[in-house]
């Protein structure tokens, strides 16, 4: 499986060299679906605070070119459509996103401890991230962004699905502490083009849905300031993960809709470390999430065989 995905990556690299816009290729399938819903102009001029250096007509034609060359992405389309369909249930903690809500405190505990240590913040403070700019890539309905904002960070949440951003904005505006979050329907690559930089870049449960993980990591790295932090959480491509995250979670327990994850898109920790290294990010810490079926709670552990989270710092 490993060699297969690397050869796929190689094939895409070749296509990149043959004249397409490499940065946009990696998020090709995201922008395909958004093109279907919105006029391209609106998605380009989304973050109003950024320098308007994007030429929309140019992007439009290049994206159209990419469509013709692209590998079949019908599965990705269907996946995005699935996310769109259940977008209204993001904040229903008993709904389809229940596992993510249950996992949230655990991944936040890891993020809090690694970021506090890295940025030398007081771990006993109620708002340790005061003064930090954090971007939540693939923020969905804002489940991760809102707690980060409550911890004092200046949060920007981005997602490729328009509906998710709308939900996130509505929910965040209910609480003054989270109404300061900036939500944009855009992609990491577009933010890179806008030359945005953040102290910490977090992409949690996203990279397994991306077409080109290596390019994605390069974009995440470009968004991080030097000596900044990058946190990625995903699912391991192991037999145990197949049994747990796909068979048990999707088919038996129905925690996730069928087809949410593709086992072949999972990354092993070694692969993730490697592609992050190539993107000038040193992985410093890694932990696993373990679910206890008796108590119904997730906890951090050293077991990275199913869900794992990695914290890395950008080399200067």
């Amino acid at each position, binding site marked *: 499986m490993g060699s297969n995905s690397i050869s796929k990556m190689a094939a895409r690299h070749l296509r990149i060299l043959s004249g397409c816009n490499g940065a946009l290729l990696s998020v090709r399938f995201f922008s395909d679906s958004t093109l279907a819903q*919105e*006029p391209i*102009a*609106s*998605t380009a*001029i*989304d*973050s*109003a605070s950024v320098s308007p250096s994007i030429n929309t007509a140019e992007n439009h034609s290049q994206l159209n070119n990419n469509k013709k060359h692209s590998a079949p992405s019908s599965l990705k389309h269907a996946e995005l459509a699935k996310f769109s369909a259940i*977008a*209204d*249930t993001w*904040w*229903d*903690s008993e709904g389809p996103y229940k596992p993510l*809500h*249950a996992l*949230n*405190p655990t991944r*936040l*505990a890891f993020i*809090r401890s690694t970021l506090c240590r890295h940025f030398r913040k007081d771990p*006993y*403070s*109620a708002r340790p991230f005061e003064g930090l700019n954090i971007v939540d890539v693939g923020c969905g309905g804002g489940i991760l962004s*809102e*707690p*980060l*904002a*409550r*911890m004092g960070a200046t949060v920007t949440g981005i997602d490729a699905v*328009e*509906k998710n*951003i*709308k*939900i996130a*904005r*509505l*929910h965040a*505006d*209910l*609480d*003054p502490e989270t*109404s*300061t979050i*900036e*939500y*944009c*329907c*855009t992609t990491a690559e577009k933010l890179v083009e806008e030359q945005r930089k953040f102290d910490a870049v977090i992409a949690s449960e996203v990279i397994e849905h991306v077409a080109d993980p290596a390019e994605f990591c390069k974009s995440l790295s470009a968004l991080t300031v030097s000596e900044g932090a990058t946190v990625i959480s995903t699912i391991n491509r192991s037999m145990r993960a197949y049994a747990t995250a796909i068979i048990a979670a999707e088919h038996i327990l129905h925690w996730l809709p069928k087809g949410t994850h593709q086992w072949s898109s999972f990354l092993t920790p070694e692969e993730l470390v490697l592609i992050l290294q190539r993107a000038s990010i040193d992985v410093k810490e890694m932990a696993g999430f373990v679910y206890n079926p*008796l*108590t119904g709670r997730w906890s951090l552990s050293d077991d990275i065989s199913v869900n794992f989270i990695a914290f890395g710092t950008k080399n200067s």
Partner: protein
Amino acid sequence: MNRIIVGRLSVNVSGLRVLQRSFCSSVAEKASSSNSGQPSSESEVKQSFTNNDDQYDVAVVGGGMVGMALACSLASMPLTKHLSVAIIDSNPALGKSNFIKKEDPPDPRVSTVTPATISFFKEIGAWQYVQQHRHAYFDKMQVWDYTGLGYTKYNARDVNKEILGCVVENKVLHSSLLSCMQNTEFRKTIYPSRLTSMALLPSSSSISVDSTPSATTLFTKGHLAKLDLSDGKSLYAKLVVGADGGKSRVRELAGFKTTGWSYSQNAIICTVEHNKENYCAWQRFLPAGPIALLPIGDNFSNIVWTMNPKDASDCKSMNEDDFVKILNHALDYGYGPHPKSISSGSVDMFSWFRGDATLSAKECFEVPPRVVKLASERMVFPLSLKHANNYVSKRVVLIGDAAHTVHPLAGQGVNLGFGDASTLSRIIAEGIAVGADIGEVSLLKKYEAERKPANIVMMAVLDGFQKAYSVDFGPLNILRAAAFHGAQYISPLKRNIISYASGEQRLPLPLPLFT
């Protein structure tokens, strides 16, 4: 989707422009207009939120011992001491710092605090204030019944501790918690009135994208609970804590159902005086209910005597000397003989059970000290068992007697409440550490999952005791006697009992799965 528009808000008209800016997708045609007015309007909107004086993080309804313990606990932890707390209680004593004079006779309303509660008080910094007033540690306890067939003596040294508990007047506990809180920079506001109604403004768990909310509804306090007070004021809070006792209004307003029954017993309490000091707690089970004698200090003791309602009102109205006589009768030879102590020479069949024998196993039966005179008025309370089926719902949580009331026979009631307060404040701190909304049900359910089983088990044990001791039936009496003997001589059992009653152990049996 309906949103309630709360009228008393100051909404900035320029806030509308900020709202439109934040919807990235619809900004295309407004891009030019939004670029102009942004920075100032955003800061204005932020200001309108911080000017609200009636908005709190936590509203504690009920400023009694358990409610104040929660507030103190929040004040003492670094993660929670920045929270703003409103305490709603019409008791005027809360407003001023009350000085308890040393010469005051002991109040009959006392509580026995377990070692676990004492460590909780030490953690929050309130125990130093308790020590400045009258309080009595006791390290011995004797339990027996009227049949005279058996007795059990407990000693703190059986579990290598110095004390079994401490008896403190409720007013001392309460004022210690008040003093503790006043000496911190905790942002608390006391509302001297009663809660009349409570409303949860509709939340967003079912937001649908297609609705187009108006600007005002988005700036409403859609994420808060609104509390209306009897003096006309209103306040908003992220979390409402019901600490308002057995007849909790919060529990009623939030619609929590309860299970329970009233015992056909009343408890009569009073303070009495002896000629000598007493460091032991005594409890004798009589046919109508147990009588307990607890040392308060300075030769005073507290009496809690459970009996049927008619006798209780007779006891209350009879003159003092007669009452003292029947008290001594009940503690001594009334209703039945003294149990026989095992003398050291005789063969006892439990010798092979004993193993590591406890100190108190060898102790003889003692008669409690004589009551010389009555030192306070007599008060009567009805007894019942009540348990709320749920402790939490969105933005509401119950602690203390609002969640559970128990029989006083083991002095556990308020200790369960302090356990609730301690657990809830810890859960709130854990929630804040990961940036959670403290009113979220998923966070509050963690508190319920921890406290409910422990409370239910304790209630079941106490209820079991109450029922077992209220029946005078030959074989049952023998069983009870066997239980007394077992607890007296089987050391591991005794240690288990002491450790459970002291609050050191959460459940009566060591169940590794659930602790």
